[in-house]
């Protein structure tokens, strides 16, 4: 896949970059970054606007759909963006194919596992009674 017309003919033939493919990965990283611009600003603003950060106040905030839904989006998009971003760093510095595959696999498991844990905790807050 070639995005734009700036790549050299050899680059097009080789499939571009150290990942060997990447147009879609590149665009996804940008799309999630723009989403996180909104969601990250929402998260910081929400934390600052809460009257205090004790457990009861935070639970009430995340129990309501207006808190739970953007937080769920932040978790999913945040872990996806982190995975895509760290992969770029790994592909730049870990060249041996086997080690590269193993490193990216561990990071994939970490991202999916961490995201699942965060979503589970959020679901327990959103669907449970407020403590």
């Amino acid at each position: 896949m070639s995005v734009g017309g700036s790549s050299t003919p050899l680059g097009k033939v080789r499939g571009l970059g150290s990942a060997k493919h990447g147009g879609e990965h590149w665009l996804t990283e940008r799309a999630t970054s723009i989403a996180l611009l909104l969601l990250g600003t929402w998260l910081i603003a929400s934390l600052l606007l809460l009257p205090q950060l004790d457990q009861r106040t935070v639970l009430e905030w995340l129990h309501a759909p207006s808190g739970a839904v953007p937080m769920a989006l932040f978790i999913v998009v945040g872990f996806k963006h982190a995975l895509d971003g760290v992969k770029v760093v790994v592909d730049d510095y870990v060249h041996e194919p086997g080690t590269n595959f193993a490193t990216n696999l561990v990071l994939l498991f970490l991202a999916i596992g961490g995201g699942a844990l965060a979503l589970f905790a959020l679901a327990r807050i959103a669907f449970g009674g407020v403590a």
Partner: protein
Amino acid sequence: MAVSIIHRATGVALSFAGLGILTWWLFALSSGPDAYATFTKAATHPLGLVVLVGITWSFFQHLLSGIRHLVMDTGAGFELGINKTFAILTVVGSVVLTAAVWFYLLGMAK
């Protein structure tokens, strides 16, 4: 150039420390008063505060240099003067925003 490598470093810090602490915080919140007390104790410890301030700065730095990269992705802002000014502004902006957030938070705690 420095701001570009800082973008990577802050991105890696946010991926591991940032999302790790967010997940711990949500899990502690959902697990009851004891778990939340443990989290709060760690978060308000001087060392915990240093980490949280670092995460906050990383967040704003990565956000601002991320905007810079999005602008540069369109092919704009490559002239030496503009490029350097934009890079310096991301650092100034992230320090100012981090200071503002923590002055507000620590003022709120009193």
